[in-house]
């Protein structure tokens, strides 16, 4: 067992424990923090496999954006986790049984697959991560890449459709109007006699 293996097991163990923590934590803020821990360790696993760029992306996107967003949401919404977790004990046995069955099944699969070794990592045409990814994305995987783009577009449209509301009473900034405003449009110089006020 070399250094690589030791690192792998440590990081994996922390990942799994963090995942359990996400589910088990009483405080939702703690749960999100556990999630961030899991993300970091997953990034660590990627580094171990030589995918540094992906690892960085994971940290930047998931930890830096997604998890922080989650944290905000959790804090702002003040979700009543106690009520949400009602019945947890009730469903625990069934869930445990299911989990155990799944575990057994997976063990069977891994046992059966023990002696089959397919290369898990594709041979890259470029040694550097970024170049490799860029090259693959825009040649062989161009179609998939575009399809992902469309999926994200749909997600954007969906988010807008479902949430954007035009409140008629809300004042909005109209930059074009602001910029296009001239003095003559909004100002008038009148000479006011003392004591008489301005007539409309």
């Amino acid at each position, binding site marked *: 067992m070399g250094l690589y293996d030791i690192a792998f097991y440590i990081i994996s163990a922390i990942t799994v424990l963090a995942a359990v923590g996400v589910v088990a934590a009483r405080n939702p803020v703690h749960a999100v923090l556990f999630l961030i821990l899991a993300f970091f360790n997953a990034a660590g696993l990627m580094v171990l496999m030589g995918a540094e760029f992906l690892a960085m992306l994971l940290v930047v996107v998931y930890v830096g954006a997604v998890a922080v967003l989650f944290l905000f949401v959790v804090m702002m919404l003040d979700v009543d986790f106690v009520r949400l977790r009602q019945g947890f004990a009730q469903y625990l046995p069934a869930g445990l049984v299911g989990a155990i069955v799944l575990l057994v099944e997976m063990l069977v699969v891994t046992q059966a*697959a023990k002696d089959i070794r397919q290369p898990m990592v594709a041979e890259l045409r470029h040694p550097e991560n970024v170049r490799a990814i860029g090259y693959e994305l825009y040649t062989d995987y161009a179609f*998939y890449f575009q399809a*992902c783009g*469309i*999926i994200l*577009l*749909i997600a954007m449209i969906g988010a807008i*459709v479902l949430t954007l509301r035009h409140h008629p009473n809300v004042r909005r900034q109209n930059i074009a109007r602001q910029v296009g405003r001239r003095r003559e449009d909004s100002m008038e110089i009148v000479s006011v006699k003392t004591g008489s006020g301005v007539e409309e």
Partner: protein
Amino acid sequence: MMDVLVQQLFFAGAEVWLAVMAMVLLVVGAFVGNRATAAISYASVLVLAAAVAFIIGLNGHPRVSLFGGAISTDALANFGRIMVFVTAALAIVLGDRWMKRVGLQKFEYPVLMLLAALGMSVMVSANSLISLYLGIEMQSLALYVLAAFSRDNPKSSEAGLKYFVLGALSSGLLLYGISLIYGFTGQVGFAEIANALPTSSKVGVVFGLVFMLAGLAFKVSAAPFHMWTPDVYEGAPTPVVAFFSSAPKLAAMILTARVLTEGFALATPEWQQVLIVIAVLSMIFGSFGGLVQGNIKRLLAYSSIANMGFALVGLAAGTAAGVQSVLIYMVIYMLTSLGLFAGLLVTARQGRPLESFEDFAGLAKVRPGLALVMTLLLFSAAGIPPLAGFWGKFFVFKAALDAGLVWLAVIGVVLSVIAAFYYLKLIKVMWFDEGDRPVDGIAWDAGLVALAMALFVGPISWFVLPVLEPWALRAAAILF
């Protein structure tokens, strides 16, 4: 290099066209606003029509593999795309008019429909696990949004959320299955997987396949992954449900058929058993579950579950005739279902849609024409000869019999008799129950669609079936 790209883009013309036009229309909508909704809707219909015309132009062209084996253009894909585009166009027309009536008109509706159609187009032509997943996600995301489209209606929002959460779970299962398969075979292309299978661990592949099938079964709302269906059908806007019950199911069915036969032909005995279990469960849940429903949309949800069970019977046969029967069955089911949902949209009572059995009591006295159209469609759904629904079931059960699955066919026939009960119950309620409360005026768009579908399952199908049958066989044959 350049001409290869041009050729590939040409054969993917339908998808490219849809994607580009969806974005163009989106931009138009964003600038013009909801005033342009009707125009964008009709433009979308034209876009789909053009896509259909383009595909018909490709008819008879041999299979072309595109983008490094991501998708392919072939008879099966073309069959699926034509059906998907046609139903999408119908759903756009239905939905646009309906949303105008209920004051929900938004230009995103046709755009999302176009994008969903694009996703289904990718599904029916997918040749690798990645495009399988991406196609499903593209379609699903659009459908999640559409389910919640009536966002101020709590039921609609709930439907969208439920669909989304459970859909995410099913995507997880699907991805887990895909990753197992990739792990054990080292491949993502269907053809490559088929080549790699003999040297891979069977246990691992089959286990992954089961998870993948779970994800696919969720998309066709087959039991036990069907639970979302009644709730979503009840809550989502009716024209959207009409679309839900038609094109996505066909696309997922074709995708399932393709991945199973092209990628996992070697594991046929295994997936056959799994499919049989899913089919029987779907038929049982769909047939029995519908018996106690009071809401017609929920009822039709159970109907669709049962129908997916029947279609899976044909798929479980594992033969070209089986896939052919599934295609025929799905087309007939799709159109019947579209007609039934259109029938629900035809009229209302003081603006409240007719959705429960009581709403339909005595409809024949007030709206005999509508009652007649619904009756024809329901008879077809119940599988009464000589209507189209009967022939769909006939082909499916015949395929199962020819493949030696006698008892499966017997179960299917028995359960289709049980399912016939709730169709007949609705007919009875319409014609024989008391109640002659007036209804609002007729919505002619929905009325015409319902009428057209009723005519289709009736007399037209007798002329269409002789054409549909060899066409479906040609489409199915490319898998074997």
